[in-house]
């Protein structure tokens, strides 16, 4: 076993909702809080930067700025003040994707507050993924689905942009609607998928698969070993 000797490691002071703890340097906020004795129910999800469950606001000592991060992706620093925001009470209107299309009005209909955007860029500064949030909100407002979908694609819906917006816009939900409409109605469809489905429905592959299913183990292995591999 490789020895982890936390006591030999340098320690840093962190303040979890104001309460001081000393934790080994080099841990992420998530792990530092666990080291300090917290057991997450909310505020921890994938622990790999994909789910947005661990949105966190922090401040460094002698600095007035509030900074945003994902707790699972941010290393603790000495004197860090930490508060997690594990839930965003944002609006999510219901819609039927089959009944709406790629019209610019769709955002004004479901998210009318989008028109109140004052282009302050606070949302962009809040984004722990470093996305151009304000730009995609503006793209949506213009009805540019492609741009809104592209700029927002890496959004993990952590909610921090919505919590910071002075005009109560919910950028990440707007982005989701933009991408769903773009994916459904604007992106070109793959013909070959349709073609293959028809072939499968017509039973084209039944016989050859059945043959493999009934083949002896030795002959199946031989067929497998001999199968041609598509070059790079």
């Amino acid at each position: 076993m490789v020895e982890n000797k936390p006591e030999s490691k340098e320690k840093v002071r962190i303040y979890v909702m104001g309460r001081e703890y000393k934790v080994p340097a080099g841990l992420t906020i998530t792990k530092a809080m666990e080291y300090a004795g917290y057991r997450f129910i909310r505020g921890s999800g994938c622990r790999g930067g994909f789910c947005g469950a661990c949105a966190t606001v922090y401040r460094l000592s002698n600095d007035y700025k509030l900074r945003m991060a994902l707790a699972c992706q941010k290393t603790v620093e000495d004197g860090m003040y930490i508060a997690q925001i594990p839930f965003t009470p944002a609006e999510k209107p219901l819609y039927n994707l089959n009944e709406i299309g790629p019209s610019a009005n769709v955002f004004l209909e479901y998210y009318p507050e989008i028109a109140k955007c004052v282009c302050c860029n606070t949302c962009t500064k809040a984004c722990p993924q470093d996305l151009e949030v304000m730009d995609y909100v503006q793209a949506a407002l213009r009805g540019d689905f492609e741009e809104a979908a592209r700029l927002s694609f890496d959004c993990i819906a952590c909610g921090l942009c919505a919590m910071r917006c002075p005009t109560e816009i919910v950028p990440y939900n707007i982005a989701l609607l933009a991408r769903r409409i773009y994916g459904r109605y604007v992106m070109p469809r793959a013909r070959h998928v349709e073609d293959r489905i028809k072939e499968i429905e017509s039973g084209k592959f039944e016989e050859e698969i059945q043959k493999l299913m009934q083949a002896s183990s030795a002959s199946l292995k031989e067929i497998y070993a001999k199968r041609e591999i598509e070059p790079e």
Partner: protein
Amino acid sequence: MSIKIIRGYPEYMRESIEVVEKTREKRLKESFPFMNLKEREEILKNFHPDYKKETKRPVKIGPNKDDLMPNEVADLLEAHPLMKPEDVDLSKVDFDVDILIIGGGGAGMTAALWANYTGAEAEDILIVQKLRLGDSNSIMSQGGVQAADKPNDSPTLHYLDVMGGGHFTNDANLARRLVLDGPMIIKWHEELGVMYDREPDGTMITIHGGGTCRKRMHSARDYTGLEIVRNLKDEILNRDIPILEFTSAVELLTDEYGQVAGAVLYNMETQEYHIARAKSTVLTTGGFGRLHIQEFPTTNHYGATADGVVLAYRVGAKLRDMDAVQYHPTGVAYPEQIVGLLVTEKVRGLGAQPVNRNGEQFVNPREPRDVESAALIRECYERGNYIETPTGMKGVWLDSPLIDMLHGEGTIAKELPAMLRQYKRFDIDMTKDPVLVFPTLHFQNGGLVINENAETTVAGLFAAGEVTGGTHGKNRLMGNSILDYSVFGRIAGITAAKHARKAKTGKLTLEHVTRYEKMLEEAGIKTSRKSPILLPEYRGEKVLSHALDIL
């Protein structure tokens, strides 16, 4: 002691990176030969963690009595129930539904949607989810989803790859279903709005994965799982399908006819029990990465604690291949903060090679996962060609800069934004420098026995996704887990809806729990362990990374 860090790496690791840079041009043109079946068998036997005998033991009780399982899994099966039957009042039903879906990841949400599409009313469905809806391994899946929809491909070839990847131990009927339903799932995703990577004319951009004979990996940058899950989740919300978040199932319920008839739920926040009665119960609880089998770090999400397997085993459901653990070949070995997180197989799919400290290739980048992992372990532990991290972890390089050299500058930024971002957060630029990797616990290959209709061996209980076994045999290939949860999640939803239309539920009981306790006693198992564990225990020093000592 402080180590000098240069562009993300300690100075001493930079020396090895320079060696890797020197051989890069030459390696660009070289392809390392694939192993034949015999060589695969040999390397697995000698170096794959699954083949270490002392890490497993025969389970003493239940439907799989005497089957070998990892100690961590056997510990959960040979444990007392979390709650006692007298803790709850079964005559007071809190939720009375047709379909109870336990687990709100990819499989559970797919099941709910297809149950709803095929006639179950939204209000007759209930999804219970331990964390938030969508929090699952599904959302973390990066590399892609396999489906044989290209003209030069066929479901037959996909079938061969699935079987070969699983070393021919798969349930052939499940493998057949998996490959035949693949293209239909892709089309369904397109209709939901999933933004798969496409050529301007709509043709899907597909690449190879380990063990594939055709390029059939569909992806959405390297956020494929996130992109699918957020569409599924939005659809669940739009259809107003009821969800209980931060709620675990701690025990299944049966009725006087011996069928499964719902579950005892546990509100993780208020710590109250609730009774959910259901005509059909669907288990979509995912896998066991957070058990840290053999002390491995894991790629898995916070809730991957094998709850479903435990619950189903108590009602007598049969398991299979629980001994087969998937270690993803390329987990992060450095930096320490993110040890064990996934470096998607798409990185190798795009041409990055595993390379040792001397800048040499030692395995083809696209072997099936278990074979690739075994080769990495051999390189580190037998041949000694590893790079050691400041915390004592061993790893080899994954030479990512090759990708932009092969496919043009900007490819990594476009195809692998999540990976690029993950490393940039720790000052490492994977377009210029290789990344250090070592196998990490990734997937539960085995699980509940199901048939083609997603029925388990117990009446009233259905299952789909990682909690099940058979589809992948002893080893799953990349891109077949999204497909698995989609294909069998869909089928589970349809079957559960159909079953609920004619099923009659009798008087609720927890007799199986009492019986299980008796089995424990008769087998002489004396323990204070309780299961399911619901969440891993990381408080205090337990959180410090799961260190490795492989051989």
